[in-house]
């Protein structure tokens, strides 16, 4: 099958980018989308041109590296599918595709289709963990957890941090990403002691990174390759509100620690 590709080419963060048109005629329906780009890059390299830069690693839909817009939709807009798992059988001969990087202030483009998502790391560093040093854990079965809660925590923990939710959101909000981690930990008894300060710290960091606010549009849920639910944002907001109204400065006096 033959494809016409319009791909965003941008040398680095400081330079301007533009769409460049390519024609590719050796596309096979069993190829993955990234393998199709490999074929394009092989052609470009042999011609001595710079190949298209895109982020990818596991190519199994779990590492969260890959992702760009295909015709305006993150990962191409197929249900529960990252772009590395998208196969060319979903396209037809003569299709014209526009590939662009995630667009968000908090995700500057570094080259072509590849962006800087380090803001996500800083949101996790702000509080997306349970503070337990190695070696100080009780027996694994000491804390029974209702299966339903363990399953719900797992549903939220499935987030791969790809950034599709931000790219899809008209406000470029990172609420679905942040809420996924807050939900994962808040649904487990181990996460309870830090539940409120975690919500405050992570939401504050998200705002600090200049992600937009959530206005309940739901584009994020529609494109999330791991099926993270919009309701996770509701739980995040509930935790945040409750933490905000009950917040007190820490009162440890000197010598108490």
């Amino acid at each position, binding site marked *: 099958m033959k494809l016409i590709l319009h791909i965003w080419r941008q040398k*680095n963060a400081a330079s301007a980018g533009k769409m460049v048109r390519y024609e590719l005629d050796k596309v*096979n329906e*069993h190829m*993955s989308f990234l*393998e199709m780009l*490999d*074929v394009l*890059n*092989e052609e470009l*390299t*042999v011609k*001595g041109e*710079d*190949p298209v*830069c895109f982020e990818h690693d*596991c*190519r199994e*839909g*779990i*590492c*969260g590296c890959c992702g760009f817009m295909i015709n305006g939709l993150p990962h191409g807009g197929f249900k*529960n599918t990252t772009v590395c*798992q*998208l*196969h060319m059988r979903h396209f037809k001969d003569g299709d014209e595709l526009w590939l662009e990087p995630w667009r968000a202030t908090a995700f500057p483009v*570094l*080259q072509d289709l*590849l962006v*800087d*998502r*380090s803001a*996500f*790391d800083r949101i*996790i*560093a702000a509080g*997306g*963990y*349970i503070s337990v*040093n*190695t*070696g*100080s*854990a*009780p027996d*694994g*079965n000491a*804390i*029974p*957890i*209702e*299966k339903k809660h*363990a399953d719900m925590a*797992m549903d939220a*923990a*499935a987030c*791969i*941090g790809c950034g599709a939710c931000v790219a899809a959101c008209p406000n470029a909000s990172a609420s679905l990403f942040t809420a996924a981690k807050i939900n*994962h930990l808040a649904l487990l008894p*181990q*996460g309870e002691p830090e539940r409120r300060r975690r919500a405050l710290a992570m939401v504050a960091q998200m705002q600090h990174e200049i992600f937009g606010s959530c206005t309940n549009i739901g584009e994020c849920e529609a494109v999330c390759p791991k099926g993270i639910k919009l309701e996770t944002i509701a739980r995040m907001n509930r935790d945040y509100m409750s933490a905000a109204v009950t917040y007190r400065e820490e009162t440890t006096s000197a010598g108490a620690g």
Partner: protein
Amino acid sequence: MKLDARIPEGPLEKKWDQARFDMKLVNPANKRKYNIIVVGTGLAGGAAAASLGELGYNCKVFCFQDTPRRAHSIAAQGGINAAKNYQNDGDSVFRLFYDTVKGGDFRAREANVYRLAQVSVNIIDQCVAQGVPFAREYGGVLANRSFGGAQVSRTFYARGQTGQQLLLGCYQALERQVQTGRVKMYSRHEMLDLVVVDGRARGIITRDLVTGAIEAHTADAVVLATGGYGNVFFLSTNAKGCNATAIWRAYKKGAGFANPCYTQIHPTCIPVSGDYQSKLTLMSESLRNDGRIWVPKKKGDSRGPAEIPEDERDYYLERMYPSFGNLSPRDIASRAAKRVCDEGRGVGHTGLGVYLDFADSIRRLGRHTIEERYGNLFEIYERITGEDPYSVPMRIFPAVHYTMGGLWVDYNLMSTIPGLFVLGEANFSDHGANRLGASALMQGLADGYFVIPYTMGNYLAQVKAGDGVSTDHPEFQAARKEIDERTQRLLSIKGKRSVDSLHRELGKVMWEDCGMGRNRKGLEAALAKIPPLREEFWKNVNVTGESMEMNQALEKAGRVADFLELGELLCRDALEREESCGGHFREEYQTGEGEALRDDEKFCHAAVWEHQGDDKPPVRHIEPLHFEYVHLAQRSYK
């Protein structure tokens, strides 16, 4: 090269306790004076960096991905073993130890494996405390499943995403240390060389993958946790970025490389579909709990699977290994698949595939149960192949998955270079010649959470912090210069071939001559083919772009240049090891029934290679292996 394994004295079950007591300690106030470099942020590196940060050391942590959470540990699907015996089914630390030594075909160090089995129970506790959402029973307790090579249920799991959840636990602990300032994270930085000063590992040279800047970093000790070298085969289940550059550079600086020929071919991967194939996707071994593997009895049977009646199917694993059946170890299941395909009974358009069929389990347990256990794996399969495994059996075929070989380490996980520690898949220590399923996650976390925090302290207590070495030291200057020159050389060739095309060619040689079955003739042929291919690379590769910018072609070129050297060492090791054991199957050495035939007389040792310079062949040393607690026997899974 001196190989002192430093195995503690005393009975097996007391060795680790004794070693910990004998270790020197660094006082809490002095810990912050020491700098440690950790390269790689998978389960081993991430766990090590988080734990060392918690102890109060200063850590600089490096990964080539955009964030530490992407390391390839994330792709592990099935689970993690631990000798908890929560199922009351006869498990114990000794049994996990025994299964692992036997599974590794008696080519691992007993003391290391026993320690691994001991700390396995702590790993589960630690991960639960971190919030890893392991599967639970209705009563709220942890669930288990079975894995290959074991007759007990000791595998803990989080759906088909166990690696992801364990890695995120690690990553969160690491980010917590980043927040405290004890860990400084360098994402998108690739280690290009190790710097050794006065015989001790004192730092690394890195390339900032965004700006292209070459940078030097000093430390009192260096930890490599950079994974395996399966991508030397080009097609493997490894991520595209997985590479051997860090361990290969360390080897060239004097670290011994042990058992490079021990590579694991995983029996259940999605078959190759065409020559554009960029990687292979694993289907978790856990599927073999409920899936039955079969091929038609008749050669060249072109009927669809549904049209082949029950009595014309050969459930060959159940037939050949009745007591382990579909849960036979990976090396055995892979070779059996190769054998039936070689006989012309393979399925799919290439003839290189066997069925993994869930029809019986769906009838017995209902679709819902199967969906709950493996739903995401079935989805992956359907997405890639376009076929629905609930109604049509999966087609699977073996693929390169893991490398048991790696840098040689002593009991303290230190390489032959003092101050250079090697963790996880990057070292050679625990799996012998074959790794059992769900043991890689266990080893990575054992090394990172529960071994290195002790052994690192013992090493640092014996050296002075800083010790007057800065990046101005001539060794650092020389290493930087060498990397600069190599980079310029790669960029100036401007030949006709892409890096990928040369990598593919290397992979083809490796798979055909040094894959599932190996023999002298093939290995000698491979050793004759690789040097000209390397020459072709350095004469005719086209690395586009420039050095001082983000340049993915340059990144790949450096990695493939190293694979072109490592591939040769792998074949050389395979040629020298004139026996079959675990994943290393030499066709000349097999039993009448086609099973691996070890030669304990001549080869009951780890082979450790020492680099002698680019123009001289490496020297092979040996570390003899002693088995005091496990009886050396022909492995049997019948």
